[in-house]
């Protein structure tokens, strides 16, 4: 790999210059309203999210593992930090951002990207649906207790976003929505909230600063739960997005490098006064759709975003919130997996339950990490339940009715141990019992205990018990389970 380093770097950066620059600009235009909206979700000034989006985009462009993926300030991480900002203030958010970054770097170094394999498709669908619902719910404060003008503006904005591409696809329709609604709001002079009302916008380039917090254990205990949740959710969404971009472009990515890249980006972002972020599913799809493929697209998105904001901050501040709300509703609709509703009927009930449980937990707790945890646990339990049914005990009685041979096949573990015990008939008066487990797999201590109990019970009834094939069956109990790399291991596992 090392010998290919330079050409690969060139391809990743400059393989698609025109497409990357154009797509980067489109993404930057779409990032501005999102970064402002997510700052508002987290309860901080828009400049916190804008600086973060600039810094995260530029840094992940350089050190990330998935060229063409867009990372910035996101809803998923913003919703986690609401209570931290409310209870402790901005400085703690910056510190939590730095710590979350460090945790992500650690996860990358430990190659925890592989843990992603335990997050099933249903959990991921639940994750994106929950995210879409959270983004939508975050718009509700802007839609309650407002004049009818706001509703008309939002509806008009949505109409522009979805209908304008029928006229031309050369101009981003969210941008048209912003421009049109801003101009209208200036003319009608109605009482509309603007971005400028939501807090301070950046007027300078970001500067390096160290979060102003007491460096002690108490502070650590305050920020650690937030940082851990941000780190987990950030990595989950980033790896999931990386997979989506992999699939869309049919090119591979380096997941562990992405973990470390996200970590570096968050750590650095905390030090320039930005909030934590991660990869964005919607923006990455927009980037690919606009023709972006390389690292340059992400880089351009970040740089152009900062340029726009610093130069145009006066104009940005007069954008009516209604325009942002319309764009965020579009993002929410685009993020939601609508096919998953249709699939509720066709998919196995267990995966639908996993998906719904993930969504419900997230919406209830506003914490994607907990939702994913519930989803993963549930899918693990459902899987164990399914596997526990791959299990059968058959038996034959000898001619003189004194010797029964039990033949155990399938998977014996904690979930099937009870069935295993129940499959033996202790009422039958026998002199000798043979239990052949050579076609079974004994996976854990529960099943060993169950087997011991069966043997003991038969002995108590006066039968002589012989166990056959225990050694092969219990090979699986050794936790290392490293037999897969020995010759013939698969045959042994499947057949013996």
């Amino acid at each position, binding site marked *: 790999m090392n010998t*290919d380093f330079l050409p690969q770097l060139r391809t990743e950066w400059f393989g698609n210059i025109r497409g990357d620059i154009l797509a980067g600009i489109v993404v930057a235009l779409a990032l501005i309203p999102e970064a402002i909206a997510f700052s508002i979700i987290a309860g901080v000034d828009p400049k916190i999210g804008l600086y973060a989006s600039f810094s995260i985009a530029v840094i992940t462009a350089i050190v990330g593992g998935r060229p063409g993926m867009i990372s910035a300030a996101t809803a998923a991480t913003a919703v986690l930090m609401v209570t931290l900002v409310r209870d402790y203030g901005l400085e703690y958010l910056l510190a939590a951002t730095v710590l979350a970054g460090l945790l992500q770097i650690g996860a990358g170094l430990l190659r925890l990207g592989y843990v992603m394999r335990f997050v099933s498709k249903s959990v991921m669908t639940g994750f994106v649906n929950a995210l879409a619902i959270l983004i939508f719910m975050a718009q509700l404060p802007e839609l309650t207790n407002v004049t009818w003008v706001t509703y008309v503006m939002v509806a008009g904005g949505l109409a522009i*976003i979805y209908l304008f*591409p029928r006229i031309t696809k050369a101009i*981003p329709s969210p*941008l048209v929505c912003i421009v049109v609604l801003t101009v209208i709001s200036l003319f009608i002079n109605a009482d509309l909230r603007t971005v400028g009302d939501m807090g301070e916008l950046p007027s300078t380039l970001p500067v390096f600063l160290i979060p102003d917090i007491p460096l002690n254990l108490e502070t650590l205990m305050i920020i650690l739960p937030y940082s851990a949740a941000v780190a987990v959710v950030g990595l989950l969404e980033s790896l999931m997005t990386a997979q989506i971009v992999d699939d*869309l472009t*049919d090119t591979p990515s380096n997941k562990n490098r992405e973990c470390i890249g996200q970590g570096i980006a968050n750590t650095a972002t905390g030090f320039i006064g930005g909030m934590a972020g991660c990869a964005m599913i919607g923006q990455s799809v*927009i980037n690919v759709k606009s023709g*972006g493929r390389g690292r340059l697209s992400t880089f351009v998105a970040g740089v152009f975003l900062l340029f726009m904001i610093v130069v145009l901050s006066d104009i940005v501040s007069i954008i009516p919130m209604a325009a942002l709300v319309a764009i965020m509703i579009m993002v929410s609709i*685009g993020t939601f997996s609508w096919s998953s509703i249709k699939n509720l009927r066709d998919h196995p009930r267990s995966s639908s339950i996993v998906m719904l449980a993930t969504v419900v937990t997230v919406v209830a707790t506003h914490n994607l990490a907990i939702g994913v945890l519930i989803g993963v646990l549930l899918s693990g339990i459902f899987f164990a339940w399914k596997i526990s049914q791959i299990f059968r005990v058959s038996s034959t009685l000898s001619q003189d009715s004194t010797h029964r041979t039990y033949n155990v096949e399938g998977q014996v573990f904690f979930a099937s141990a009870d069935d295993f015990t129940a499959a033996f008939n202790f009422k039958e008066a026998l002199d000798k019992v043979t239990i052949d487990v050579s076609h079974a797999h004994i996976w854990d201590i529960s099943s060993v205990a169950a087997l011991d109990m069966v043997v003991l019970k038969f002995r108590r009834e006066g039968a002589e018990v012989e166990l056959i094939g225990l050694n092969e069956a219990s090979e699986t109990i050794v936790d290392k389970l490293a037999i897969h790399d020995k010759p013939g291991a698969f045959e042994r596992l499947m057949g013996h």
Partner: protein
Amino acid sequence: MTHLIALIDGSSYSQSVRDLTCWVAERTEASVELMHVLGRRGVGSEPADLSGNLKLGARSALLQELADLDEQKAKLELKRGRLLLEEAKSGLEEAGLSSVTSKLRHGDLIDAIGEFEGDADLIIIGKRGEAADFAKLHLGSNLERVVRSATKPVLVASRAFKPINKFLIAFDGGESAMKAVRHIAGGKLFTGLPCVLLCVGKPTDSLQEKLDDAATILRKAGFDVDAGFEAGEPEDVIKNRIEADGIDLLIMGAYGHSRIRNLIIGSTTTEMVRSCHVPVMMFR
């Protein structure tokens, strides 16, 4: 039995690769594997949709659209690749080679070579591929990667093939140069051709000794060797000598330095391959 891998694409070098392969295969009675690698898909050429919005099911619609585009392109490329291979194969068979097979692969060239070079004794490739930028006199981006990653000697075809009557070994006393000498002495590819063994630089004792050793090895194998030193810059000296003596093929060790060094001061190997208009056989 000797086995060759010849890499072809649609570039103007493919004809020369084919002729060179034919020459090598005839002399060594080798079997030939023609290989064409359909590289990684080009990026971003699709008509871009800059509308920047997300509709219902945007992700799956986009996936479908991109997959359709790729499918069309891939089908064309597959067809073209098969034609290229078929044409080259029948060309070699007409020239009298009996054992010619062909292979069409997806993915990266280096991976494909890594997968198949185990059975091969020599890899033949053109100086530039289809994608290389001709105007800048750049060598194909793949050439250096192939030479660096290959464990077998690589023979680089020049633009036009000329029958080979005389060859030159650029000798620097290094390990890869000695490897080249031993390889030539042991094989039958160059049997009977006059050989120039040239060492550029000042004759030191140890270098003289190594040069004598190399000449002895070659003479023992029955070669007519003209060994000697010549002062100057390797690039110029070797190039002039090739032109002056009517040398048809250059043999040398390749890429002895790190990529970082090459990035800063340039690679002698790359410069030689670029400036000498004869096939170059490289050993690592």
